[in-house]
C-alpha cells in the first residue's frame, strides 16, 4: 500500500482498521543468496539496494533483537557530509544526496530537515582550520560557507556571545545541506521497502557462529537454526569485532559507549545543528521540541549500551558553557549506543579475510549519516564481489599500507 495523505484519509474514513504490515515476519528459509547480519540502517539499506539496484532479492536480514534497535535507533540523527578528505567527502555526500530523495524513494517520510550544520570557531586557529575544511569541501564538490559573527548571532541566538564567555564565538562555518533525519524512520522505511521487494527480515535471530573454510563462508549459525548463505554481509555496529572473532580474524576496532540525551520539549529555540570544537558537544532541536545533545565517549571499552554519570556531567557542562540559557531546562531521556572506533576515524568497508564475506563497520560515532551510501556501496560490493569506487579506499588493507584517512577533525567528536 502506498502511503499518502489520500490513503491516510481513506483509512481514517474506514476507522483505521486493517492497516497493512510494514514488513512481514517470515520464518527463515534454509538458504539465501545473501545473508546480512545486523538489521540496522546499514543492513536494511544494503538489502534494499541489493533488490532495487541489482535485482538480488533472495536476501535475508538477520537481526538479533528488533530492527533499528542498535545504533540506528540511538544516535543524535545528524546527517552531514562536511568531511575533509576527498574519499570521505565523496562517500558521505553521496549519502546526503540519497537522503535528499529518500522519503520519496522509500515512500516513508524520514523527515530529512536540511536546516544546516554549524561548526563554531572560538580561536583564530579554529578559523584557519575551518577555512581549510570549508575550502576542501568545495574542492570536493560539497557545499560550505563561512559565517561571520553577525550571521552566527542571527542564526544561533542562544549561544553565549558575551565577552566573558569561556569559549568566545568568533565565527564558524556551515554546511547548509546538513541537518537531521528521523532515525527510526530510516530503518523502518528501508525495511518496508526491502520487504516489499521480497527481502526476508528475520528479527529475534542472533548469529552465534559461521560455517566457513578456506573456500569461504557457507552458512550462518543462528538462534533460529543454521541458514545457508551464498554471501554474507556484516553490518552489526557495536559487535563487529565479535563477529570477526567468530570468523577467525581481527579488526582494528575498539567499542565504546556513546551517550546521548534529550531535553523536555520546548517551543523552538534552536534552528540549526551546532557543534563546538572546544567542548566536543553538539546539539539540535527535534521537530518535537526536544533538544538532542551529544558529546564525547565514555572512555572505556564496553558493549553495555550504557554509559555512566561522569560523561553526562562533562557533556552537559559543555552544552551549558555554549548555551547558558538552557541551564534550567531538564534532561528527559538518556541512552547509549556502542560505537566502533577506528583510530583514523574512517570506516572499515570491504572484503573480509574470509571469502564471500563483506565488511561494513567501524563507523565510530558517524554511522547514521552514512546509511544510504553504506547500503548502496555494500549492495554493489556484495552483488559484484568488488568494492564500489566510493568505498575502495576504506578497505581493511589500508592499515597495512598506511593509507589512513584521518578524519578525526571531521568526525567532530573526541575519540
Amino acid at each position, binding site marked *: 500500500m502506498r502511503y499518502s495523505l489520500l490513503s491516510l484519509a481513506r483509512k481514517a474514513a474506514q476507522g483505521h482498521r486493517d492497516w497493512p504490515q510494514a514488513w512481514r515476519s517470515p520464518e527463515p528459509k534454509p538458504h539465501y543468496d545473501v545473508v546480512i547480519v545486523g538489521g540496522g540502517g546499514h543492513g536494511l539499506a544494503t538489502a534494499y539496494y541489493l533488490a532495487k539496484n541489482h535485482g538480488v532479492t533472495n536476501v535475508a536480514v538477520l537481526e538479533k533483537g528488533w530492527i533499528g534497535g542498535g545504533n540506528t535507533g540511538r544516535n543524535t540523527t545528524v546527517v552531514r557530509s562536511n568531511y575533509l578528505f576527498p574519499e570521505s567527502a565523496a562517500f558521505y555526500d553521496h549519502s546526503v544526496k540519497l537522503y535528499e530523495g529518500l522519503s520519496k524513494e522509500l515512500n516513508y517520510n524520514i523527515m530529512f530537515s536540511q536546516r544546516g550544520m554549524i561548526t563554531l570557531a*572560538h*580561536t*583564530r586557529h579554529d578559523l584557519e582550520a575551518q577555512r581549510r575544511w570549508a575550502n576542501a569541501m568545495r574542492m570536493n564538490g560539497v557545499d560550505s560557507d563561512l559565517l561571520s559573527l553577525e550571521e552566527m548571532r542571527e542564526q544561533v541566538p542562544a549561544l553565549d556571545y*558575551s*565577552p*566573558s564567555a569561556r569559549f*568566545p564565538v*568568533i565565527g564558524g562555518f556551515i554546511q547548509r545541506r546538513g541537518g537531521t533525519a528521523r532515525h527510526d524512520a530510516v530503518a523502518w522505511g528501508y525495511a518496508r521497502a526491502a520487504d516489499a521487494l521480497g527481502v526476508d527480515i528475520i528479527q529475534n535471530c542472533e548469529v552465534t557462529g559461521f560455517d566457513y573454510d578456506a573456500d569461504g563462508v557457507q552458512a550462518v549459525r543462528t538462534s533460529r537454526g543454521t541458514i545457508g548463505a551464498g554471501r554474507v554481509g556484516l553490518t552489526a555496529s557495536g559487535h563487529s569485532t565479535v563477529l570477526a572473532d567468530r570468523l577467525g580474524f581481527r579488526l582494528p576496532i575498539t567499542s565504546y559507549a556513546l551517550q546521548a540525551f534529550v531535553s523536555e520539549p520546548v517551543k523552538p529555540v534552536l534552528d540549526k545543528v551546532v557543534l563546538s570544537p572546544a567542548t566536543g558537544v553538539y546539539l539540535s532541536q527535534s521537530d518535537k521540541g526536544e533538544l538532542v545533545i551529544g558529546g564525547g565517549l565514555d572512555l572505556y571499552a564496553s558493549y553495555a549500551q550504557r554509559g555512566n554519570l561522569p560523561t553526562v556531567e562533562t557533556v552537559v557542562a559543555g552544552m551549558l558553557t555554549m548555551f547558558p540559557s538552557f541551564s534550567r531546562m531538564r534532561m528527559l531521556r538518556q541512552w547509549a549506543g556502542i560505537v566502533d572506533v577506528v583510530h583514523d576515524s574512517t570506516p572499515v568497508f570491504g572484503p573480509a579475510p574470509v571469502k564471500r564475506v563483506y565488511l561494513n563497520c567501524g563507523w565510530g560515532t558517524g554511522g547514521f549519516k552514512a546509511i544510504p551510501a553504506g547500503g548502496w556501496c555494500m549492495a554493489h560490493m556484495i552483488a559484484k564481489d568488488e568494492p564500489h569506487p566510493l568505498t575502495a579506499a576504506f578497505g581493511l588493507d589500508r592499515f597495512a599500507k598506511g593509507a589512513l584517512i584521518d578524519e578525526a577533525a571531521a568526525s567532530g567528536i573526541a575519540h
Partner: protein
Amino acid sequence: MADLAAWPSMHGSEVTWDGAAIAARPVEGFRLFRVKFAGESEEGAKALGLPDCGHATPSALAIGPGDWLLIHPEADADAAAARVTTAGGYAIEVSDALIVLDLKDATQVLSRLTGLGIACFEPGRTARTRLAGIAVVLAGLDMGGVRMIFDRSYARHMRRYLDLAA
C-alpha cells in the same frame, strides 16, 4: 579575534584567598620537591624514610606509587634534596610550580566534593584526586584542616571554584 579583556586572569601570586567561601590560607616559607626513582623505589624510599602510598610524614607526601612530594623549610631544603640523590633518587624543585593552601575545617567539605572518605583526611594520610577539574594533592592536618597542593598556574581557577563549589 576573541577579546579576552573581560576575562578573569591572574597567576597564583596575585590571587587573594581571603574571603573564599571555603576558607583557605596559602602556606609560605617551604620548598617543595618532586621525588621519583628510576626503576625500583623500595630500597631508596626506605633509606629516606619516605612514607607508603597514601600516607604522609611531616616532610613528605606519597602521592602515587613511587611518587613523592617533599616539603622542607628553606633552611634544610637543599640538604634534603641532596639526600635523595645519595639514595639513588631524583628530586626536582617544584616550589614555584605548586601552590600550597591550608583549608580550615575542611574535611567534611572536601569529602563531599571529592568523594573521598573522611579517613583519607586524617593527619598522616594523603590523597591525590581531581577537584575543580584539576589534579590536587590533599593531606590531612590537625583539627580538621586539610592541606591542598596543586599547579599554581590554576590558582585563579581554583579561587573561583572555592566560592562556587559548595
